[in-house]
């Protein structure tokens, strides 16, 4: 359903800050894949997600989504296919607006927006039902400004917004990294519940190896802008954190996984 072929991206080319982030990235996802992505800093994980989302365009290569070439499609246009949750809980929601107004914006993703009311009565019922599933007590706070919510609540809300209209592909970019461990756990559980519940295809970048093994049906490890390890199904279930660390050290030529990867 998603096919990334031979993707190259260099930031600040021909300057002292030149950084070759993607060097011929290839990746193919099947419908219903829930893929966790790990890799050290600068491996190109976030860049890959940003290329898929259209935040940056690649220098070379192509991205096909369900056969449609979206490599250079404008960000807001391809948004109709994508659900996105960001690392920063502030990024995914409009803090000055109410919970229901945020949901209403998301509910119209991919639809033509006109002069009809921004929120209708029937929608509110739907939002209450959906918010109940999150089990965070948000269903009674539809008119609360999102800025008053905690980081975890905001991420859960963003997750709901990203999936309110079923996306072809859900992109989770370290969406629990800014949360405390307990909240992160809760948000991850909600993510899994939504992904399996609506049989979504998802790419989840994480720094946490345990989570990468625990969640999803497939795991990829990136290093220097390429996928260097790709494991799925039964084999993935048997993985342990140590296996990943060994794998990482062997490809990186003895370089140790950074602290953040080991500690988390």
């Amino acid at each position, binding site marked *: 359903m998603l096919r990334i072929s031979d993707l190259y991206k260099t930031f600040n080319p021909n300057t002292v800050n030149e950084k070759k982030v993607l060097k011929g990235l290839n990746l193919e996802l099947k419908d219903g894949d829930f893929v966790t992505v790990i890799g050290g800093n600068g491996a190109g994980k976030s860049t890959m997600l940003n290329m898929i*989302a259209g935040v940056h365009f690649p220098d070379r290569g192509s991205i096909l989504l369900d056969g449609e070439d979206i490599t250079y499609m*404008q*960000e*807001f*246009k391809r*948004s*109709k296919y*994508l659900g*996105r949750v*960001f690392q920063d809980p*502030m*990024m*995914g*929601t*409009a*803090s*000055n*607006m109410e919970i229901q*107004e*945020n949901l*209403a*914006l*998301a509910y*119209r*993703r*991919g639809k033509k*927006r*006109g*002069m*009809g*009311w*921004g*929120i209708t009565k029937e929608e509110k019922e739907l939002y209450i039902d959906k918010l109940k599933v999150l089990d965070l007590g948000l269903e009674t706070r539809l008119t609360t400004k999102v800025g008053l919510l905690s980081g975890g609540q905001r991420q859960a809300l963003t997750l709901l*917004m*990203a999936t309110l209209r079923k996306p072809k592909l859900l992109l989770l970019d370290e969406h629990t990294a800014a949360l405390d461990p307990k909240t992160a756990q809760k948000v991850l559980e909600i993510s899994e519940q939504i992904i399996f519940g609506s049989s979504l295809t998802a790419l989840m970048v994480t720094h946490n190896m345990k989570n990468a093994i625990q969640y999803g049906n497939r795991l990829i490890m990136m290093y220097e802008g390429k996928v260097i390890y790709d494991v799925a199904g039964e084999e993935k279930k048997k993985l342990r954190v140590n296996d990943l660390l060994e794998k990482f050290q062997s490809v990186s030529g003895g370089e140790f996984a950074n602290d953040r990867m080991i500690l988390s």
Partner: protein
Amino acid sequence: MNIVMALFGAVSQGLSWAILALGVYLTFRILNFADMSCEGSFALGGSISAVLIVKLGLNPFLTVILATLAGMMAGLITGLLHTKLKIPAILSGILTMIGLYSINLRIMGQANTPIIGQSTMISLVKGLFPEAKALGMKDSTLQTWITMGIGLVLTVVVIALLYWYFGTEIGCCIRATGNNEVMVRAQGVNTDSMKTLGLVISNGLIALSGAIVTQSQGYADVKMGVGAIVIGLASIVIGEVIFLRPKSFASRLFSIMIGSIIYRMIIAVVLQLGLNTDDLKLFTAIVVAIALSIPNLKKNRVTAHRRVN
């Protein structure tokens, strides 16, 4: 008696300028875009209305509509400069503002256009009433009442339209764009279009206000827009202070209208107290600087307090 008459005039002036403040609110608070083009579009609205009345003898109400459309064009230019040519927000506004200065001179063919003795919205409405003497008041008093009435009706209409529009799907997208562009793009909305649209509406309103002010003061001047953004901001922050940051959108819009009136009253009082008119702009600038900094200073004090605890 003098001060009472001055305050009376201030209310009517405040209502004429209220729509300017609403326009500034759209860009400054909703879109989070400090739009300097408003100084040019305010004078643009005034110039167009005055010239169409004096040279073409058009119906004054019609000139107000045409002035609004011209203001929208000005907003469109600022929007395109910013979104298509990627010129920073503040600079795109300044470029439009400077360009409009020449355009306004071209429109009028001179630096100002008096419309004394010509038909205006006020004189047309006044024609519907009996003579001032028959009503037992001075002619100028009736004039002020009518100016006040026209300002009030137009401002309330604009507030109603804004309230409706920003509740629609597109309106919600404009509001969200000023709040979090990344999120709005992720929801499939073209944020560039939303910004441009907001600028178009805002500058349309500001030109509308310029046309009303021109007709009520009896002339258009190429410099009439100088400081318009600060006057608009003053009205907004005064409204916010008095209503303690109103929560609902409707009350927020009305607070701006009241803020505009109170701003004019403050000006009337300080002028009565002997402030030189030349110092007015400095006075306004200081008031706005203080009002805008109060929330931030308060916040600092709270965090400092927390640190101690």
